[in-house]
């Protein structure tokens, strides 16, 4: 059973306090939305969970192991995968090679052809199997986004953080991503999804975390959070009016 706990995370850049005592726990295959106004510290929190940034103080544990002291690749091997706000495909490598990288990184003794079948399945699930030998740079922006999601399936983490998966994507593509999230979640992977798309995030997630200027101001079911006066004041108020 997956368990991730962030305990009292503080982060400051120079004098700027970006995260202020953020504490939460994820247990089991939850589907969590992380929202907050611009500059609330969502991406910083992601970077700390991922190991790209070290917290000024506080700890992150995953399945009993401390991961905030690990480098990003160590966190990935511990079972936490993420995407980036801006799509980051390996542009001058083929789609297939893009998918093989996480699989090979997780299995230090395996050979590439051991994973080609699995990669094919992932590509078919994401409807881009015809592009397997194209360079990633030849893909459209949306296809590159799918490729990024595919890489996470190959990494096979127990928890996935998606940074703005719906930003600027075609409605049809949105369906594919939506299906990806729900099906993968049903297979037992936890999700934290950062999004500005309120409608989607409220229907998709079963739990919401709200950040505001580094403070975690709400944590609960979407319906409850929607009515939270703090959240309304900080964030949703502007949206609904």
């Amino acid at each position, binding site marked *: 059973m997956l368990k991730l706990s962030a305990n009292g995370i*503080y982060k400051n850049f*120079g004098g700027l306090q970006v995260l202020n005592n953020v504490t939460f726990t994820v247990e089991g295959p939850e589907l969590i939305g992380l929202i907050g106004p611009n500059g609330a510290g969502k991406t910083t929190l992601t970077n700390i969970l991922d190991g790209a940034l070290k917290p000024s103080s506080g700890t992150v544990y995953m399945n009993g192991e401390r991961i905030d002291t690990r480098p990003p690749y160590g966190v990935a091997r511990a079972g936490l995968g993420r995407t980036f706000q801006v799509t980051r495909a390996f542009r*001058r490598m083929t789609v297939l090679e893009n998918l093989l990288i996480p699989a090979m990184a997780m299995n230090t003794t395996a050979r590439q052809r051991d994973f080609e079948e699995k990669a094919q399945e992932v590509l078919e699930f994401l409807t881009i199997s015809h592009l397997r030998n194209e360079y990633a*740079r030849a893909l459209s922006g949306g296809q590159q986004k799918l490729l990024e999601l595919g890489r996470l399936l190959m990494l096979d983490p127990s928890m996935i953080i998606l940074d703005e998966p719906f930003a600027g994507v075609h409605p049809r593509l949105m369906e594919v991503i939506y299906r990806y999230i729900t099906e993968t979640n049903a297979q037992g992977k936890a999700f934290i999804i950062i999004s500005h798309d309120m409608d989607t995030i409220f229907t998709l997630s079963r739990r919401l975390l709200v950040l505001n200027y580094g403070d975690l101001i709400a944590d609960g079911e979407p319906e409850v959070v929607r009515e939270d006066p703090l959240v309304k004041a900080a964030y949703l108020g502007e949206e609904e009016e």
Partner: protein
Amino acid sequence: MENAAIFGWALLWILFWGALGGVVTPRIYARKDLEISQASFGGAVIGAALGPLSLFPLWVATPKITNRLIGIGIALVVGLFVAAFALADPDNLCVVNGSFVVSQLTNGIVIGIIYGLMALGLTLIFSILGVVSFAHGEFYMIGGMVTYFITARWLPGVSPFIAILGSCIVTFAIGYVFERLFLRPMGSGKIERPTEYAILVTFGLAFFLQYFTQALTSAVPVKAQRFFPFPRTEIPADSGALLSMTPGNITILDAISVPNPRFTAAVLALIMLAALLWFLFRTWVGKALRAVSQDRQAAAVTGINPDTMNTLAFSLGAMLAGLSGASLVQVFSWLPQVGIPAAARSFVIVVLGGMGSLPGAFLGGLIVGLVEAAGTGCIPDATRAASYMPAYGMVILTLVLLLKPTGLFGREL
């Protein structure tokens, strides 16, 4: 050196406490949740300055590490270094002869001004285009070559100003054409990984320009005549105690002696520097350039064409290198290869001063000029010192890159 051991131990002392300060200080500051961006460098400097005497108070009190604190630290380190040198080698000319020291320092400053001018060109290019031009030394070489050919071969007897103007035009034009043909496409997204492309293509330009010049001029060293010989003067008239000038030299207070070509070059460099500052801070185009260096997109929104500014910055930078070459061709012998050490020196200065910082480049130039003068004047084993000359700068370069990639005056990366 008589007591080399003293000097060696002093160096070891400086290095040990510097390293300790550099490693431990950021951890202590981080534990106290303080800003650590300056802690590594500041800790190293303060540690090197007074060792445990300054480090332990620093770790206990953990004051904010200001530039002033770092400045005091650097001054102390230099002082310690000089004192150790004086103790180790008491008979050295640099220790016993005051007027020799003052002359060396003056010459260092004089040459440093010109180094600074050349480095300004490099840093201007970097601040606008975000690339380091590896062909900078070749522009310097061409500036000198053109000046030499105009004054000595093509139009003998013509005013040196015409020759300098000619070298400006040539280097500006080469820079302009190159930027338009090879660097302009970078901005339009036609080229992936533009920084690496820029490194390689300027490298190619350096290769081409160097061999092109060599093929045209053959590799015989040349040297231009003094541009403006001094009139013979003595003040006061009988002794020349205050100031005495011969065509090739100026002596002030019977102590400071500067050769004419260096003096002329420094004066020329100062004039050009003033013109450059006026251009950058008083004219519209100059302001636009600085705006682009600070924020490309914001500048583009206000109606400045960043592409034009790129071309202008590159050509101007090339011209500044050409100008320093033009002023120095009367000081040093000139060969198609002179650009290489000059470019290396500019890299050192720019990295030391902070990539993209204009005042940093100028101050860096002065520092390097002074260190070189001290190095050639004071180090006992002259031949070995001369061989190691290019390495000193490179040691500084690599150390700064490792310890403080932003340089002394650089903006944060």
